[in-house]
């Protein structure tokens, strides 16, 4: 559980510094996310745990990121109807930045991490 929590926070953090600067992930952002997923996958030491851990971390990470993105709406800084527009805009940005390439790449990273752990640590 703690690993999934840290994993999700890491994913949200890397995404946040990228999208709050330029709304897109640079190559090095994806590289950092990939390394994080390889490391987290290795720490699970198990393929099944890595798969479910990754799914949980992505859900947690994207939820944290979305909540951060709509802080101006939650605090009332952006009033209606702009609030609805901002929510839709951020959903659009996050979906475009996540699906499908980044998500599949990070999934692969998690599996590779679990594979490396099984190979070298057992």
């Amino acid at each position, binding site marked *: 559980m703690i690993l999934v929590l840290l994993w999700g926070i890491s994913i949200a953090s890397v995404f946040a510094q990228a999208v*709050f600067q*330029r709304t897109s992930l640079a190559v090095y952002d994806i590289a950092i996310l990939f390394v994080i997923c390889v490391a987290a996958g290795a720490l699970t030491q198990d393929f099944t745990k890595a798969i479910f851990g990754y799914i949980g971390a992505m859900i947690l990470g994207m939820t944290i990121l979305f909540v*951060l993105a709509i802080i101006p709406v939650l605090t009332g800084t*952006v009033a209606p109807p702009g609030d609805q527009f901002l929510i839709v*805009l951020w959903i659009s940005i996050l979906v475009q930045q996540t699906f499908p390439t980044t998500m599949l790449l990070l999934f692969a990273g998690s599996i590779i991490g679990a594979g490396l752990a099984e190979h070298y*640590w057992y």
Partner: protein
Amino acid sequence: MEVAARARDILTMIFLITTVTSAGVAGVFTYHYVQFFPSMKELRLDISLLSFNPTPLSLNATVIFKVTNPSSYSGVSLTDFVTNFTIQAPGNVIIPQGFVDVYIRPKALDSQNQITLRVPITGSRDGPYKIYQLLNTYTPSQFRFNFTSTVFVSTFLQSYATVQAIYECTTTINTGSCDQAAVLLKTHPGPGTSAGGG
């Protein structure tokens, strides 16, 4: 096995440190992002000068607008300025004069920055001639210029949406003032354009 356990511990520590560090960095950028919308509401437009010396063919006027970012937020730039204006003559005679689009090479509108826009106004249709005729009866200082101006701002959201700040300005040759009417976040023109007010 002991080496493997030690490697796992080291990796766990590195993972923990990476998480804390990345969360700290993300916190800084999130704070910066949260400042973005209030700073757009703080953007100011002022008219520092209106000169007005009409001929039958031209209003021969110049307006100097000043766009200021008084907030602590940096990372935006001014990309376009469009203004629609009417002239209000004594007796409440309104003479619409249409749009003026000021070409601007994008300029950084960082914290505490001010951008000066010199806008020449010639007038349109029979407006200049009407004003010229009215000047036989009134003085230039009795004419009021009413501007609805849109400031286009390029931001970090530029790939997805533009920010437009709209101002209502009213000025005579002696004094003028502007009030922000709205800040709009709009998707780029094209199919499915939508807008929101802030």
